[in-house]
């Protein structure tokens, strides 16, 4: 009885098997996730180690849990430092600055203004240096930090002529850490044209799936 059944329906059983295989194989090759048209990745240097900046190629990838919440902080304006001409930049300009810096331009510095704990969770943008608010406020740390920024002391006055161009970011457009730091820098007399504010921050960087590195 059973054998008869198999003989009768062997064709269908084969067909089912074949169609199952077709379903399993039917995966169209995914389109590449690009930064710009014809621009997939860029090689930069983070702490003298080469890193490729590119977007996450998995189309199903979601932004990390840490940045899914909607309640944090207060919304920052697009130009919080008016009338100071501090430029607000976005991802592509940021990548441009990192590219220039890692190709030997010493006059640019990417500054991560978040504490160590946040960087442990999210990583940092390749090429960035961690400088916290306290490193600028307290006179004890300020000497070291301003040395990093290439500022010299002339007769107990800061000389900003050779100061580096700072591209400062923090968690995102609701985060007050980098605006606070930029305000302090402006108060100390840092030239506003040499400060760039990446408003989107780590959240916008992650929300388009760009590469991050550990400190």
């Amino acid at each position: 009885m059973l054998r008869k059944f198999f003989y009768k329906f062997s064709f269908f059983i084969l067909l089912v098997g074949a169609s199952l295989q077709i379903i399993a194989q039917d995966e169209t090759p995914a389109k590449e996730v690009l930064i710009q048209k014809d621009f997939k990745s860029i090689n930069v240097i983070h702490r003298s180690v080469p890193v490729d900046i590119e977007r996450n190629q998995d189309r199903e990838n979601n932004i990390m849990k840490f940045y899914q919440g909607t309640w944090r902080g207060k919304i920052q304006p697009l130009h919080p430092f008016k009338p100071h001409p501090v430029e607000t930049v976005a991802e592509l300009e940021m990548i441009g600055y990192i590219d220039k810096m890692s190709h030997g331009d010493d006059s640019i510095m990417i500054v991560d203004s978040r504490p160590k704990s946040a960087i442990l969770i999210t990583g940092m943008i390749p090429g960035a240096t961690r400088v916290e608010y306290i490193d600028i406020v307290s006179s004890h740390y300020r000497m070291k930090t301003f040395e990093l920024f290439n500022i010299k002391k002339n007769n107990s006055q800061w000389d900003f002529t050779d100061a580096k161009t700072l591209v400062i970011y923090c968690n995102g457009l609701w985060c007050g850490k980098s605006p606070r730091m930029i305000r302090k820098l402006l108060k100390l007399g840092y030239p506003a044209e040499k400060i760039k504010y990446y408003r989107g921050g780590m959240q916008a960087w992650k929300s388009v799936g760009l590469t991050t590195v550990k400190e």
Partner: protein
Amino acid sequence: MKLLILTPIFAVIIFASVNANQPNQEIVKTTNDNLVANITNVKKEKKKKPVWLKPGVIGTTLVIDGEPFVISRNQDRKHLIAKIYQKTGRGIIKPMHPFKPHAVETIAEHEMISYISRLSSKKGDVVVVDARKSIWPTLTGSLPGATHVPFYRFKKDKQYALETLEDEFGVVINNKGEMDFSNAKTLAIYCNGNWCKMSPELIWSLLDYNYPAHKIKYYRGGMQAWQLLGLTTVD
């Protein structure tokens, strides 16, 4: 005979769908549990700090279509961004000022809110434009008071473009087809986010019609940044 061959395929499809449905039921159960948990949490957290719009400001009250309307952020501290905006692999990244050397200004949330509040003023010189394809507003909602102008229709359908320019944007077109932009309204245009090409496309085609660039504002953050901050949307 054809039907006979097709039946096993149908059977496979039904089998697969039944299999795929089973884990979903579990998810539904867990979300129900979460809902209950959330409600209890809200009761506990009632005395917690509010979610701020600006320092000292929780929400702004506007008048839209004659009715008061409050724009504020979602006060629930467990609220997450919509699933559709968690994806990282969409589009290509737009620069901060994509329309250089045209003087199209890039704006952010505070400017957008002030433009929305100007919608109901007597002058009526502002239009908030949703440039996305027509399915997107049904998926994600849109900004309060937004006018929906799909970019592809504006680009391809010249009749529609001229009608919207005349009726919505306040452009005067005479019999010869010459356009007078002296009373043209200020357009605050948005789409999905900093990776989305829909509002840039609309702005480019507006610039092709010689629309004055200083009257076009580009909200680059778009719906993603709006929802990322938990701001109010309407269906």
